[in-house]
């Protein structure tokens, strides 16, 4: 491992992870819990009840100033300028080439836009956003000032409402409210990365441990549990949600990745990468990111070849056990023409040709999430 423990950052919840006996691993420069009792049990707990994830490694960048709304719109492919206060939007952020710099959440908080980005991309994103910022926008690094927990599962609403009140129950999917200021600032958002109903809660680090403790107290009747990054990955993969660095990166564009629903080619003011995406769309996509469900028990891993009757037509980007599906699942880029649901392919898993069927994303469609995909911004 390239990262040594001494150089790793810790989140404000580190003491809780230690007390719970979490297995800690280096992840994007942080020492993070990969599991507590085990990935399978944690995955099932989120599908059946409710779990809490420390996602404080995610990065927060605030755009403020008179030009913030318009600039956010230029940076990302989805509509984030003309959205009301209290709305959250998922979007890729592209290079001029249409390749993906990062995928992120954009929160419309008054005239500001709060961007929540992947930990591994934080420095790159901050540089990119500062380089392109017009003079009427200030770019604020709020990463060190923000702790984040995700509370996910069919019982999440009851737990979060017990802590934050009934306003929680009236939050629609991909909306949020903010309360307080200074050290008491809290943002509660009905969003997540698991396919279950759930919330993401942002607080200042000085309030992190009390927030954790209040959620666990409120969740005790629902047998709330801490969930590590391992189950976060198996949960998101069953939903066919992209993981940056595996399924999407600077060499893939949002259209290929099945994220066309986040790309507003027609939006006012355009956006960085628009021209490349228009060209890509009119030329026709050469490849697409598909979901796969495998037969047998062998698990496909990142990089495994995908073949059709012996000819390689693609490669796996993410693969794991589909714990709630009961079969191994994967995502892969395959050549156009071999992407229709039901298409039979073979995945080369370490010398074996494992049969697999193209399956629509989400591969696990039975989650409690309010919509299988975040809706397009209105």
């Amino acid at each position: 491992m390239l990262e040594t423990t001494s150089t790793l950052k810790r989140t404000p919840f580190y003491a809780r992870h230690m007390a719970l006996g979490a297995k800690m691993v280096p992840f994007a420069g942080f020492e993070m819990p990969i599991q507590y009792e085990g990935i399978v049990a944690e995955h099932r707990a989120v599908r059946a009840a409710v779990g809490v994830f420390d996602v404080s490694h995610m990065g927060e960048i605030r755009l403020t100033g008179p030009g913030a709304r318009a600039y956010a719109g230029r940076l990302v492919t989805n509509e984030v300028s003309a959205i009301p206060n209290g709305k959250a939007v998922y979007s890729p952020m592209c290079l001029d080439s249409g390749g993906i710099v990062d995928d992120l959440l954009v929160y419309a908080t008054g005239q500001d836009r709060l961007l929540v980005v992947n930990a591994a991309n934080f420095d790159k994103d901050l540089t990119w956003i500062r380089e392109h910022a017009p003079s009427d926008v200030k770019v604020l690094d709020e990463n060190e000032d923000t702790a984040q927990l995700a509370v996910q599962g069919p019982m999440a609403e009851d737990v979060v409402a017990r802590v934050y009140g009934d306003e929680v129950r009236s939050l629609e999917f991909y909306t949020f409210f903010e309360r307080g200021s200074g050290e008491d600032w809290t943002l509660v958002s009905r969003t997540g990365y698991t396919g279950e109903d759930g919330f993401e809660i942002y607080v200042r680090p000085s309030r992190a441990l009390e927030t954790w403790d209040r959620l666990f107290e409120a969740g005790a009747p629902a047998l709330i549990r801490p969930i590590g990054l391992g189950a976060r990955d198996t949960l998101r993969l069953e939903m066919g949600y992209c993981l940056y660095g595996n399924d999407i990166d600077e060499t893939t564009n949002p259209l290929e990745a099945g994220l066309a629903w986040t790309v507003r080619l027609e939006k006012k003011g355009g956006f960085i990468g628009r021209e490349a995406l228009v060209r890509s769309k009119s030329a026709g996509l050469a490849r697409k990111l598909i979901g796969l469900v495998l037969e047998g028990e062998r698990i496909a891993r990142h990089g495994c070849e995908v073949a059709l009757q012996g000819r390689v037509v693609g490669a796996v980007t993410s693969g794991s056990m589909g714990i709630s599906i009961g079969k191994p699942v994967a995502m892969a880029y395959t050549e156009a023409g071999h992407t229709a649901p039901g298409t039979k392919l073979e995945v080369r898993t370490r010398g074996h040709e494992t049969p697999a069927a193209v399956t629509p994303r989400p591969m696990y469609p039975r989650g409690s999430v309010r919509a299988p995909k975040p809706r397009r911004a209105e």
Partner: protein
Amino acid sequence: MNVPKDLRYTKEHEWVRVRGDEAEIGITDFAQGELGDVVFVELPSAGARVAQMKGFGTIDAVKTVSDLFAPVSGEVVAVNPELKDNPALINQSPYEKGWMIRIRMASPAELESLLTADAYEKALGAHA
């Protein structure tokens, strides 16, 4: 960390239990903890021949896949039939119910090249 005294070990975290001219083989408590939840093990069939320190199978955990190395050479005489339906036995009971294969040893002298429990524990110390 559970490291039974009566077993021999490899640096790759397999254990061997000797019964006459047969060697029962599995992976250690440390190994199952590092791998996390095991979801599939691929093992040779009875009658197959394995060679010391050559791969004899693979083990899929949720997060990763790992090769299994034979601590000794010989012929596979038994494969744990429970693991196909319940690979989690490797996590729950790595030294007992989670055993993988039994080998009739071709050369019991190979056992001398394996680590004692104390030596294995010392090697683990470097991980801690």
